[in-house]
């Protein structure tokens, strides 16, 4: 239903975000909150998320440099991180944080490190993809309605 090619491309991009599991249903909720009064809501929230989560990631990194690991603290950070990630619907990132927390709970330092690396990767990918998406969105103009992923 997107006649405009840019919009069409946007829609495709958006769909792939879902298909590839980068974002989930929650993302749709964000989109639904976007309206005329709040035309850039999704991007605003996501930007806020980047800022906040970057800080947490830094904290975790620093914590991981101190041996022995303070699992409780790591878990607490990750809990925070998970909370905000889930709020924007960052699916893969969220899954990875859950895994990280499991490792924390079982005191598996190795697992934590591995999982964290993976998490950072997912996080970076997400940022890139969302970045491109928003950029295109801005160019394409407001999307009509949020549509559910198929």
């Amino acid at each position, binding site marked *: 239903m997107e006649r405009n090619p840019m919009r069409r491309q946007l829609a495709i991009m958006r769909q792939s975000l879902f298909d590839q599991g980068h974002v989930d249903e*929650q993302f749709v*909720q*964000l989109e*639904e*909150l976007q309206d005329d009064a*709040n035309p850039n*809501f999704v991007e*605003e*929230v996501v930007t*806020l*998320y980047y*800022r*906040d*989560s970057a800080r947490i990631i830094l904290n975790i990194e620093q914590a991981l440099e101190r041996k022995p690991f303070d699992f409780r603290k790591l878990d*607490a950070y990750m*809990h*925070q991180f*998970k*909370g*905000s990630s*889930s*709020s*924007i*619907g960052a699916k893969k990132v969220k899954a990875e944080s859950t895994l990280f927390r499991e490792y924390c709970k079982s005191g598996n330092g190795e697992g934590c490190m591995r999982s964290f690396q993976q998490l950072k990767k997912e996080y970076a990918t997400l940022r890139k993809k969302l970045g491109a998406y928003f950029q295109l969105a801005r160019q394409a103009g407001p999307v009509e309605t949020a549509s559910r992923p198929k």
Partner: protein
Amino acid sequence: MTVEQIGSEGKDQFPIGMRVLAVDDDPTCLLLLGTLLRRCQYHVTTTSQAKTALKMLRENKNKFDLVISDVHMPDMDGFKLLEHVGLEMDLPVIMLSANGDTKLVMKGITHGACDYLLKPVRIEELQNIWQHVVRRKKKDRCNSGSKEKPHPDSGEAAGIGNVDNNGKLNKKRKDQNEDEDYERDENGHDNEDPSAQKKPRVVWSVELHRKFVAAVNQLGIDKAVPKKILELMNVEKLTRENVASHLQKFRLYLKRISCVANQQANMAAALGTADSAYLRMGSLNGLGNFHTLAGSDQLHNAAFRSFPPSGVLGRLNTPAGLGIRGLPSPGTIQLGHVQNSGNPTNDLSKLQSFVPGNHNTNILQGMPMSLELDRLQHNKSVGHIGELPTTDSTTVFPGSGNLVDARITGFSNNPLLGVTSNSLMLEGSSQQATSHTSVSAIGFQNGNALSDFTSIAPASNQLQDSKAGSQGQASPINCNAGQIIRSAPQEWNAPRKDAPYQSHASINSSIPINSAMIQLGQCLDRNNSIFHKTTDLDSVGPLNFVDPLSIKHGEGDNSIMEPSVIEKEGYLMFQPRPHGSHVPDNIGSLEDLASAMMKQEGGCNGYSLRTSI
């Protein structure tokens, strides 16, 4: 119901415009939450700091209808905020967390949250949160209404003063007529008059509340009338109505915590939560001894409710009394809530000594007695009854300085009979030698009328000091404890769905139970101890023994009627009605109480503790 602008013409568009305060340290979540709430057409204020939130709330209690708060926050624990809000402002609070662990959810509930949402929160969930506001108002109204006499229908005395200052609510409820009937003690000021007289809401700060509790304790919960409380408190600008309404809430709160405490104990036992010590109560294997706390005289006097023994007795035998038994208790009441370890603020639980009136009668009918533990003095207001070790453990409940009145309201499923080995020691504050925590825990059975009584009679201070370890938090005197108390290791056959306390089974009969949970309603003259002296109650002074003979189970499944309710100077006090009036027609009030309780109880489950205060 409130509209967006307070005082605007009475157009009530609730839930539109409901004023919500959202607290979350995560900016992403906060932004999202705020937006979602606005989308629901609520009037939203957001803050990332719990302290700021509290400040805002305190500034003007009437500014918000509902609070939503994250659990994990850096500056203040969400549960703590929850307590503060509940205690000081009596607003419904919804907890929010990414963590949906049962334990946490339980914790939220016991701390008084009226709901617990998981992040990411969806708009559908938020669209219905206004129900909590309505429910609370309704309940308050109901409670105040029923205090007087059972108000099956009208229930909504407009007097729920503080809940909603603007008279709109009252108008809506049409209980103007209630106001007249309203007990004088009750807060009547903000009923009927619509916007005409909106008294500024009194902020019951921790300090103020402490004074209040001290005054109530001093007077004795049954004699605590707003006027006297007001005098004792000696605070400027506090009116009798403010006190009356606060008193009402306080009583409800106590009831509620015991209700929750029970439930919690049950749940906890089931879940094995570590949090609440009182849970152990339920799950105690062989609760230790409940030492009745010997209350000091003053305590006794204060707490003592003078029911004419005969009257009480008579009551017991009356259909009413019997009827009470049949009252289905919603579940064991647990004081669990109170235990929030370390949160001193709110719980004023006063342990009140209950005097079991007639020895011959079995007092315990399934009436819930409220157990209040006074936490004024110590933070650990929560008495963890659970701490009782199997043998002879005494749980010390630190009571507040001079008074630890424990009024435990417990509904226990188990017919508690032999209050035997559980010794529940309620200790006044450790510092004060005088503190006598007399805790009468009244266990009620769910549905089974009684026989469970755990009356934690006031134990002597000395007793307490030594023993217990400390966990003296009075509040968690679970009513379950009551159940636990059995002299003989009788298995509770009572089919209690949630009876976690199978523990009773393990109670050795040999251990005398000092405290018996006595079902409410029997306010007994402490002197007439129902209890006979028990044998080897260690270190417990004279133990009074409650003769359970007359205790009948409502459901009759418990055969455990051990006449071993031992109560040290036990007295079970029960306050028939949460309002200040004392005893007057109390006998008559048993029924009322029962029905009131029932009503309460009905709401008890899952009811947020906060509401009462």
